[in-house]
């Protein structure tokens, strides 16, 4: 039992039955929830009336991708504690989105972050931003699609392409039918499934290994620490320099602020108060499952170093499933697989809804603003479906990276969108020239220094660090902030460009989305604040260019 082997359910029918039952549930919920979708507003933000608890759960499950079950534990196996430290701060996404710009954009009534960019910076900047957002969302959706097909292939023995097309289309179908209302209710249900199917089986695994804290797996595994330290004394080592830990902030903390499918969850809230309560639920449930994930990674490393469990390099992604196959009865593993699929589904539905909103609202409706409501809604459904189809087709020849590509996409969102939204909400001087320069140049720098385009032009040469976009974002995110502020400041003072700027409507928009009914010149107009941001950004960018010593 303890040798390298082909990890698969011996009874795939069992797995299929459980997964089939969950799919049926999601279809029914999607259908019931979305019967009343009459407008694009209903389709994309669920009519803007989702309650705090449902929304908090939905936020958490939209965020928690298939990586929770498949990728993270593998990277804990590989990188150990540094990866856990990297993952912890991902919980900041929704709280920071909410306090920095989410409530403002909710007040504005935006469908997507790009919707704000259009009103704030005009059509050109918003289309550039929307194209980058679509790229980010497609990369994200692709990762989920591939992961789901691989799960079916390796665990249930369904050929990759069959699984991809059959389940891909089933998934895209239910998201299209359900719209945001369906996706939100389903995501809340999926969050419960994810939490139960991850944590309870983990408790059973810990009990089988002999851990006394099996009744609360997320935190009670201290009695395994001495054995771990004995067989793998380096497990808890930080390994990397403070610079590596710092680079997580621009890459992933700021990166998450640019992810459209997360921000859209804030806009579905029924009120600003409800959005703020949702972030409390989000933090609680996400912290619970994240902590359980670290425990699962810990148990995996523990089992391989002290219990003689052998997991080949190629099977590292399947750690969670393998632990269940080894220590739990098969029907439990079938439930865990359903949990993993739920995790992939909730993220995928968020991605596809974002793609749909970006294509139909931020590109088509921007170029052709006078489309009737019925046609706009129909285009919305088609765009969601098309986005799903594209991710299925792209997944036929999948790129080799799963989790890494998703984290790299965080950085791209952080470079091309987050600065535009953050500075745009808080500084009246930001204008379209600055926004376009920041998005285009910042995005180009980030792509050039990634290992995927010019493998020789990288900042650290440490594969995972460059591949996750940590080093690239530490350079490109500050460049993007600097360009946005400096270019805006200069162009605002060039008389020849005044005709092409929309200062008055920008000012009115900013006052309005912060809740003011009058206009005051002193508000959101701090040159000092902008200057400090430029100086801090410059220091970070220069630091990123200095040797990493890795």
């Amino acid at each position, binding site marked *: 039992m303890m040798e390298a082997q082909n990890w698969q359910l011996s009874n795939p029918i069992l797995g299929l039955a459980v997964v089939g039952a969950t799919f049926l549930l999601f279809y029914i919920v999607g259908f019931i929830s979305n019967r009343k979708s009459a407008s694009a507003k209903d389709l994309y933000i669920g009519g*803007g009336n989702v309650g705090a608890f449902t929304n908090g759960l939905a936020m958490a499950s939209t965020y928690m991708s298939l990586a929770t079950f498949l990728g993270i534990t593998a990277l804990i196996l590989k990188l150990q*504690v*540094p990866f*856990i*430290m*990297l993952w*912890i*701060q991902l*919980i*900041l996404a929704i*709280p*920071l989105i*909410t*306090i*920095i710009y989410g*409530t403002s954009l909710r*007040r504005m*009534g935006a469908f997507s972050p790009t919707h704000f960019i259009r009103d704030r910076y005009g059509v050109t900047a918003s289309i550039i931003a929307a194209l980058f957002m679509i790229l980010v969302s497609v990369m994200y959706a692709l990762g989920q699609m591939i992961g789901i097909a691989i799960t079916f292939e390796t665990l249930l023995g369904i050929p990759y392409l069959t699984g991809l097309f059959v389940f891909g289309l089933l998934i895209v179908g239910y998201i299209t039918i359900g719209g945001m209302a369906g996706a939100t209710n389903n995501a809340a249900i999926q969050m419960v499934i994810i939490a139960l199917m991850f944590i309870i089986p983990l408790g059973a695994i810990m009990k089988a290994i002999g851990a006394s804290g099996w009744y609360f797996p997320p*935190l009670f595994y*201290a*009695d395994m*620490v001495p054995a771990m330290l004995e067989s793998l004394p380096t497990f*808890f080592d*930080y390994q*990397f*320099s*403070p610079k*590596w*830990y*710092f680079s*997580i*902030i621009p890459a992933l*903390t700021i990166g998450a602020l640019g992810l459209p499918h997360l921000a859209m969850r804030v806009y579905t809230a029924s009120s*600003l*108060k409800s959005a*703020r*309560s949702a*972030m*409390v639920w*989000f*933090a*609680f449930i996400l*912290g*619970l499952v*994240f*902590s359980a994930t*670290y425990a699962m990674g810990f148990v995996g490393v523990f089992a391989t170093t002290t219990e003689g469990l052998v997991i080949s390099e190629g099977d590292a992604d399947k750690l969670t499933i393998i632990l269940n196959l080894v220590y739990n009865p098969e029907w439990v593993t079938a439930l865990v697989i359903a949990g993993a699929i739920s995790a992939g589904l909730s993220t995928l539905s968020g991605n596809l809804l974002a793609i749909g909103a970006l294509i139909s609202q931020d590109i088509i409706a921007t170029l052709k603003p006078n489309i009737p409501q019925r046609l706009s809604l129909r285009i919305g459904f088609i765009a969601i479906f098309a986005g799903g189809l594209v991710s299925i087709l792209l997944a036929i020849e999948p790129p080799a990276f799963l989790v890494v590509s998703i984290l790299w996409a965080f950085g791209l969102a952080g470079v091309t969108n987050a600065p535009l939204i953050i500075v745009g909400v*808080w500084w009246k001087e930001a204008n379209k020239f600055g926004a376009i320069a920041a998005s285009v140049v910042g995005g180009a720098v980030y792509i050039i220094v990634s290992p995927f385009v010019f493998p020789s032009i990288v900042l650290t040469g440490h594969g995972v660090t460059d591949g996750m976009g940590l080093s690239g974002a530490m350079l490109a995110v500050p460049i993007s902030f600097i360009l946005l502020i400096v270019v805006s400041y200069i162009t605002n003072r060039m008389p020849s460009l005044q005709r092409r700027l929309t200062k008055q409507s920008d000012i009115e928009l900013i006052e*309005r989305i*912060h*809740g*003011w*009914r*009058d206009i*005051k010149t*002193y*508000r959101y107009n*701090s040159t000092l604040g902008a200057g400090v941001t430029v100086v801090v950004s410059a220091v970070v960018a220069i630091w990123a260019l200095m040797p990493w010593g890795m």
Partner: protein
Amino acid sequence: MKAYKKEVQFTIWMTAAFILVGNVGLIFSVFPVDAMLFGFPVMYIVPILMGWFGVFILTIVAGKIGNRIDDEIDSENDALGVSSEVKDV
């Protein structure tokens, strides 16, 4: 003026607090600690606890203050005597 200042200061300080609480690993990478807590190395368990309960507590605080600042902005608006038709939905 008062509500505006509060809003800006709240956002800056709250953002800083969230980033700090979510990145305790960064602090330990600069100032390593060789001690145990609840049976785990401090440098392992404290970032995890802060990244869960610390962030959770901050969201409660941020929600309460955010709601209060909204109310103050509203009352400054009302003091202006502007009609309330553009009140947020």
